[in-house]
């Protein structure tokens, strides 16, 4: 697949534990094309987060290969990985992970600081994205002044600020009630409509229904991979 944003082959990850080496991922093969919208499902401990961290270049695999936007990630140094995290992908966490001492606008603009963008542009971009997620009027507030659902929208705005091709979200609705979860999923749907590739992890089948393709993990392996609506 020439236009695969993500391609992994034989991807494995083992953790060192007190009880010895624990294989959390045991050889995963997957290709994700540009513009796809994928939900990753599976029971607790099946290796979903481990997989997402590898895709997000936050962690390094113990086996296999990973090509992100055509580049073999194993050949890149730490700075190059940081640039990938900054420009090519945006990561959304279950726990939002906003910086508590900064205004929402500054939180959203932070990736632009590391991209070396000037102040006026940073401000303008952050404003646009806060408006985009419907929180323009809270630009100067601190994260603890707004609700969890709103915080997650800010986190998504931050992930989007450098116009990445790919959004990775590990249980983005895990801490939210069903109503706010729906709002977040609507936002992801719109983003995918704009052409952004989305990979998200979820436990809930009705959340996964929003995605176009569903991948199921069990014990560090993919056990099913089908389009939404099609029989597994």
């Amino acid at each position: 697949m020439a236009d695969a944003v993500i391609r992994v082959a034989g991807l494995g990850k083992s953790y060192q534990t007190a009880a010895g080496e624990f294989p959390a991922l045991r050889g995963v093969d997957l290709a994700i094309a540009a513009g796809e919208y994928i939900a990753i499902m599976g029971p607790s401990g099946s290796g979903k987060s481990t997989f997402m961290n590898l895709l997000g270049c936050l962690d390094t695999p113990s086996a296999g290969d990973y090509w992100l936007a055509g580049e073999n990630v194993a050949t890149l140094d730490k700075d190059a990985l940081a640039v990938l995290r900054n420009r090519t992908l945006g990561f959304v966490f279950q726990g939002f992970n906003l910086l508590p001492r900064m205004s929402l606008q500054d939180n959203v603009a932070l990736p632009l600081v590391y991209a070396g963008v000037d102040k006026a542009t940073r401000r303008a971009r952050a404003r646009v994205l806060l408006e985009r997620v419907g929180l323009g009027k809270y630009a100067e507030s601190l994260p603890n002044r707004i609700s969890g659902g709103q915080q997650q929208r800010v986190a998504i705005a931050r992930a989007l600020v450098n116009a990445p091709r790919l959004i990775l979200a590990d249980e983005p609705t895990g801490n939210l009630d069903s109503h706010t979860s729906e709002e977040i999923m609507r936002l992801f749907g719109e983003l995918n409509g704009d052409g952004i590739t989305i990979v998200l992890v979820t436990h809930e089948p009705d959340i996964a229904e929003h995605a176009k393709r569903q991948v199921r993990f069990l014990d560090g392996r993919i056990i099913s991979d089908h389009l939404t609506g099609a029989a597994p």
Partner: protein
Amino acid sequence: MIRPMLGEAWLAMGANRLRTALTMLGMVIGVGAVVIMLAIGQGAQYAVQQTISTMGSNLFIVLAGSFTTSGVRSGSGGGPTLTVGDAEAIAELDGVANVAPTHQGSRQLVYGAQNWSSQVIGTTPAYLDARAWSIVNGAGFGDSDVRSATRVAVIGKTVAENLFGDEDPVGKTLRIQQSPFLVVGVLGAKGQNLDGRDQDDTVIIPLSTAQRKVFGTPFLGSVRMIMVQADSAEAMERTMAATTALLRQRHRLREDMPDDFFMRNLSAAAESEAATTRTMSILLGAIASISLVVGGIGIMNIMLVSVTERTREIGIRMAIGARQRDILSQFLLEAVMISFAGCLLGLLLGIAIALAINLFTGMVVVISGTAALLAFAVAAGVGIFFGWYPAQKAARLDPIEALRYQ
């Protein structure tokens, strides 16, 4: 890149004000101590320089030495080994600018109902030239006064104040050992000499008069001391050697006989005094610098705590694209800012205390721009040096480990 980071460092410092303030206090004390010590040390150096400049330059003295009569040696200055003739002969030597034979001692001065004990120096007019001592009121005495042993006196500022008060001393008559002396001039102020003696507490009279009327020397024409001024610092050594040779020859000393006089290089003594104060001020500065190091260690300590506390924040920053050098500079900047702020406060505090010391004790303090600049350079250095390790530690964190940190 640096501008948004300055703002962030400011935020981080403000997030824990008490801790930042206490950390800064270490630097404040360190820099303050250095500033005060440098001010005192440089003040001492300045005071010594000042004193040396009042002494006169390129001076040495020849003291009458011991002479041996029937196996009994007298102490230095005790023998009649130096004469006015010796002084006149020295004046003929190459490289000699001024020669002043002197005879001095402490005597009681009386003017009206006032009396005052002071140093009386019998000498020739060349003495004032050698010591670069000016007359601020009236005039000095001349060689003719020495030849005819007139009873005239030139008095120092302290004597003028204590004996004459508000009166103009010139033209008045004071008594030394019952003999009346006409005050013809008042000397300019010189302050203390290196031994701490008040140089202005002096009366200068013609040598011949001093010997006859004041000290009553049994050997007329002999002097206790000859002050010699060389043309230049380079000429000092040569002139001293020539003087030694001349005096040995004049005193008919055989090869195997010791000198019957002593020589002392006053300028060299002053130089060594200056060197001593220089050493002292360096020592003071060095001791104070130790507190600067302690302040630096305080910064390092707090930065390490801060890195640990903010591990998760570091993880988040890395997740959204911070490179190692971004994290490094963020923490380094914070350390340098604490250091700088502490330095600025320390500088102000140090200057204030130095001025207070000057005000309350009268000790000379010198606050120089160089010292202030140095303190700043050192503070930046301390910030970078002690901030480096914690910042490095932060930058080397693994993104996923940092994100997992609770």
